[in-house]
């Protein structure tokens, strides 16, 4: 069977056999890429069937970092899971906190004070910028530009992590949000520091873009590679910059208006072709939009409490019922689904992980491309294994 007919057939057919079973295609080379491959962002394995350099089949293998987060959360109180949500997508602990707090607030109907809403927006947008910067840095690293571009991204990320540290006490495991508000108030000095960091961000993004966006090698490697059609993206539940890179206008900050996002003016960048370059560009433009949101939020932040003083922290028992709360995390739609039976622990606690669901189409994007491009396409999905495997 020639590789092109085989390829078309495999694209059509759903019933692909497990990759490691002998199926008579002796000329195909089977490669287990990972779990300790440097490009897999942790412990993730792709089983590839190769015809020369071309990918004929790709099977993702999950579970190397599985610790059954959901089972653990069902055995402890609602609040005790908050620090554990930091460990899902450990690059973006603050957005994880927010998504969980939002779901619990939907379950109980708690109100959040205005100042806390502003703090949440500021922290979430800072998280988005540092996530996108490091995602792009890793993407360039996977293109072969070892180290240097990543360090440009990390230089800026350091400043944002310093802000997180001075506010929450931790750079990555922030554990900052609470049901009905935030753990501690921000000081005026912290806000001044944040304004300084935010004022420096546009020049960082300009510098980053000057080095990258028009770069011949980057364009040659990224354009037309790993194309994701918008209809497939919607059907496969892809969210975040990947979905918008395929040109589908769906940003939960605009759709759900959770928190106070209806108060800010910002645009939703969209891609045209759905290739790796568009995903890269959407992330760059989203960083710029986050800066405009940050400028507005840091200007308008009101005084007041960050937590309702009457909010119950100990002996927290929501009434029976259930709620699904979701936010636009940097990697896509992060949702928490909770069922309460009236007890101190959630009866059911479910994390809707954007990183895992965005990998549904990995094979579709990679079929027919070179092995070197698989690394790149995988990098453009932007995953964290802590969230994929939970």
């Amino acid at each position: 069977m020639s590789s092109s007919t085989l390829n078309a057939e495999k694209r059509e057919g759903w019933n692909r056999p497990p990759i490691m079973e002998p199926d008579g295609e002796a000329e195909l080379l089977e490669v287990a890429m990972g779990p300790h491959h440097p490009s897999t962002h942790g412990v993730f394995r792709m089983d590839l069937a190769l015809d020369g350099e071309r990918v004929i089949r790709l099977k993702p293998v999950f579970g190397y970092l599985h610790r059954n987060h959901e089972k653990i959360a069902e055995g402890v109180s609602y609040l005790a899971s908050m620090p554990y949500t930091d460990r899902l997508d450990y690059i973006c602990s603050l957005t994880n906190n927010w998504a969980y707090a939002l779901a619990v607030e939907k379950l109980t109907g708690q109100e959040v004070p205005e100042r806390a809403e502003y703090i949440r927006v500021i922290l979430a947008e800072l998280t988005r910028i540092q996530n996108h910067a490091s995602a792009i840095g890793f993407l360039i690293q996977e293109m072969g530009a070892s180290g240097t571009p990543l360090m440009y991204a990390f230089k800026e990320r350091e400043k944002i992590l310093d802000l997180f540290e001075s506010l929450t006490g931790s750079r990555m495991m922030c554990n900052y949000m609470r049901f009905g508000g935030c753990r501690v108030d921000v000081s005026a000095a912290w806000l001044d520091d944040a304004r300084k960091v935010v004022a420096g961000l546009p020049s960082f993004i300009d510098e980053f873009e000057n080095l990258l966006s028009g770069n011949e090698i980057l364009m040659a490697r990224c354009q037309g590679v790993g194309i994701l059609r918008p209809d497939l993206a919607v059907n496969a539940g892809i969210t975040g910059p990947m979905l918008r890179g395929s040109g589908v206008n769906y940003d939960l900050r605009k759709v759900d208006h959770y928190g106070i996002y209806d108060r800010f003016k910002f645009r939703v960048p969209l891609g045209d072709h759905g290739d790796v370059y568009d995903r890269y560009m959407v992330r760059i433009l989203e960083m710029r939009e986050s800066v405009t949101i940050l400028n507005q939020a840091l200007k308008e932040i009101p005084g007041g409490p960050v937590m309702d003083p009457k909010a119950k922290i100990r002996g927290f028992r929501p009434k029976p019922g259930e709620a699904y709360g979701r936010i636009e995390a940097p990697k896509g739609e992060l949702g928490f689904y909770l069922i309460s039976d009236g007890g101190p622990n959630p009866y059911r606690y479910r994390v809707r992980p954007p990183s895992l669901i965005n990998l549904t189409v990995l094979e579709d994007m990679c079929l027919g491309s070179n092995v070197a491009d698989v690394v790149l396409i995988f990098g453009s999905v932007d995953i964290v294994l802590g969230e994929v495997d939970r």
Partner: protein
Amino acid sequence: MKTVEEIKAAIETAVPGAAVEIVLNPSPSGQHALRLAPGNAVEVAKFLRDDAELALDFLSNLTGVDWPDREVTEKVKVARTVTKTVDGVEQLVEEPVEETRKHIEPGCLEVVYHLFSIAKKHGPVVLRMRTINRTDQVELPSLTPIWRSAELQEREVFDLYGIVFTGHPDLRRLLMWEGFKDHPMRRDYVDPDDFEYEPTPHDAVLARAAAHKAAQVSAGQEGTGAAG
């Protein structure tokens, strides 16, 4: 956005014979659900996706819930005939007596779907489906042919809850390893007692390990437990 009642009516007109039940949610979130009969769930799902007004093109979240058998205690009033002395004469009198009855409500496994519309920007519409029991009749139709985002999530539910999705293109374990026997998210799952490593071994763990070792020696075998 239609209410659950309107969606139920729309489903029942579009798919003849579809049994839809509304499950009310008492929490302030107000996310009420629709319980589908597994028999024609695929047609219902197709209708929900393709209907011009609902256009639920985005299956965001799919997950399992375990409802084990539970013992229900209820008080019932029963009429009972008792012998009583009325006016010095022994008589048979009917008298209402309160009695406590217990019965086992059979458990089931449930799948919950959260649907949104990217075209119309509304949602969520919550669907639920239940298996007949938790042991041998755990099949539900797979919705992966309708929404591809179910592909990995159904594999996860199969792995952690043991619900078998008929019609899934590639139903294998997702997170646990091949050869693992149990379904860890079920509420009656028992941890294996042969953990090889504990960072800070304390009395309970050491006692369990000793018991496990003793059982192994007496059985003269190795490698029992869930991983077997």
